[in-house]
């Protein structure tokens, strides 16, 4: 039984230049204590999808589909029901820890606000719990840090504060949007360890949105690859890295420098503008396997192995990569 079931999620923005389909019929599930990696380059719709689930998008967005969580369809739930879920059962960690923390409040008060609002704790209890949470995310001397302002903390510590805040109400799902992108590698390693630890100790399911395949390889159980608003491939992590099927997944894997590998493989062209997507498969203009069928038809997702889905007319590992 899945914790979260998203079906046919579509997000459209009505702009001056016409409608932009940011997310196109996305379906996915998240199991209990599962770590799901969502990978893609900028503009592929990975952040928008999850923000739309919690209805965090501006008015210009039209969201369709269903998202079942705990017997509720998040996209149709009332405002008050949603407020009970958002931040309490499903929590979000944003990419930029400096802009998502309020510079005018002490970190303890910011964590405390969540506790007082959702759990009705008193000021004193909230402070005590905030210290516990800072301790949980391994911030040294939490008794002192609780009274500091965000600017007094380093980037890595701010991200830990964000995670502490997200964990405040012991959520079932933690959605982390590029949680390590702005951080140095040694700090990133610590945050990834923390994610693993949270999952193991608290049983929290985690959605990890990232463009970094190394991060996915490190902590995810299952991976969804997105391109131009669609899911193009999905598989358990070992399967995906061992037998990538979609040419885009193959391309991404070949583009990362790694020891022993030869020249980097390039994906020609660029990510298409969502306002003017090609008629057929969105990846066709950059795809080495593109032909007439691909250019005029959109491929459906189909199963190609156990839990392995791919949206491609010509799936398979790259010939180049195999050689």
């Amino acid at each position, binding site marked *: 039984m899945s914790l979260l079931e998203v079906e046919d999620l579509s997000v459209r923005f009505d702009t001056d230049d016409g409608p932009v389909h940011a997310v196109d019929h996305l379906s996915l599930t998240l199991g209990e204590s599962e770590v799901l990696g969502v990978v893609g*380059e900028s503009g592929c719709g990975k952040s928008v999808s999850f923000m739309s689930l919690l209805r965090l998008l501006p008015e210009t967005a039209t969201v369709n589909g269903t998202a079942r969580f705990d017997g509720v369809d998040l996209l149709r739930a009332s405002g008050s029901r949603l407020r009970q879920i958002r931040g309490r059962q499903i929590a979000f960690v944003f990419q930029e820890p400096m802009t998502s923390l309020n510079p005018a409040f002490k970190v303890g008060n910011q964590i405390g606000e969540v506790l007082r609002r959702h759990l009705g704790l008193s000021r004193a209890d909230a402070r005590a719990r905030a210290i516990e949470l800072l301790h949980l995310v391994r911030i040294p001397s939490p008794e002192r840090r609780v009274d500091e302002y965000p600017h007094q903390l380093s980037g890595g510590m701010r991200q830990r504060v964000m995670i502490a805040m997200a964990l405040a109400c012991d959520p079932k799902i933690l959605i982390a949007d590029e949680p390590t992108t702005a951080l140095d590698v040694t700090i990133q390693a610590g945050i990834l360890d923390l994610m693993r630890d949270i999952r193991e100790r608290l049983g929290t399911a985690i959605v990890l949105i990232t463009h970094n395949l190394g991060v996915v*390889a490190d902590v995810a159980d299952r991976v969804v690859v997105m391109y131009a608003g669609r899911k193009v491939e999905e598989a358990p992590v070992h399967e995906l890295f061992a037998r990538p099927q979609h040419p885009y997944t193959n391309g991404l894997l070949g583009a990362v420098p790694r020891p*022993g590998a030869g020249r*980097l493989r*390039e994906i020609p062209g*660029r990510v298409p503008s969502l306002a003017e997507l090609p008629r057929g498969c969105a990846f066709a203009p950059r795809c080495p396997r593109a032909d007439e069928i691909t250019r005029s038809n959109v491929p459906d997702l189909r199963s190609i192995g156990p839990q392995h889905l791919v949206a491609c007319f010509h799936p398979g590992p790259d010939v180049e990569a195999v050689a």
Partner: protein
Amino acid sequence: MTEPVLEVEGLVKHFPVRGLGAKGVVHAVDGVSFRIGRGELLGLVGESGSGKSTVANCVMRLVAPTAGAIRLNGTDITRLSRRALRPLRRSMHMVFQDPYSSLDPRMTCGQIVGEPLDVQGLARGRDLDVRVSQLFDRVGLRDELRFRYPHELSGGQRQRVGLARALAVSPELLVADEPVSALDVSVQASILNLLRDLQEELGFSCLFITHDLATVEYLCDRVAVMYLGQIVEVAPTRELFGNPKHPYTQSLLSAGVVPDPEVQRSRTRVVLEGDLPSPLEPPSGCRFRTRCPLEPRSAPQSHDEEPPLVDVGDGHLVACHLVRRGETPDLYRPLEVAR
């Protein structure tokens, strides 16, 4: 060794801080020395706050060094006036990190690429157009993009414009400060490949600054690792990645993620405690000691004495008391991969 293209000796850059009750000196770069040979790519690696960009800016004389010497082709440029420096600007050029803010939005891309040629008086009129056209072709940009403005181009294309501008005057030294870190993975690959091709073709030397170890391993001949304003280790790339000696280099290598779950999940990982100390008050002795997992072994020497950068053979230099005493820091051993 033939005369190096760039020689940096004991470079120091301190930024005074005043106001808001704080007073002191930011020790951004504190005694950095290295050389870059003809046609050599040196990678300068470090995390944010390590001073790597300040080194680049000093080399380019965008900021004035506090002390030390910078020699370009044997000429000391540390204290040259702007006027005296101008003819030498032909020999070195820079590619910046942000392809958005480093191109003048009011100039067409063709004008941007042609500007160094014009300023140096190397080409005019028709000749200039031809040269710019050739440069666009060389970096893989369509010719008609010469008449477009930077905002009309994608990030990758803009970075190609930056590269074409830097190479317009055929510099002997290219300083590249995180040239791909603002780009998407698939675009990064094409810029890195381009840089490698151009280097092979034109033979310039390069100071390549980055926080990304995998990029350095792909591109550079030699690597210098910086921590808090100092170089802690320098070695040829293969040697540094295969046999890292400094505890910081070891933790840095162990922290990098590899896009392969089998490999990634079986790696040992050293997680450093604490944060980078403030460059306002760097620790006494060895600067890494406050986070070094091997500090108990190196104390008290590491508290009192600054470890010098010592050659341990084959051009491998390390600044660590333990290594100097003949001990081997063994936080992390690289996996035996086909190198």
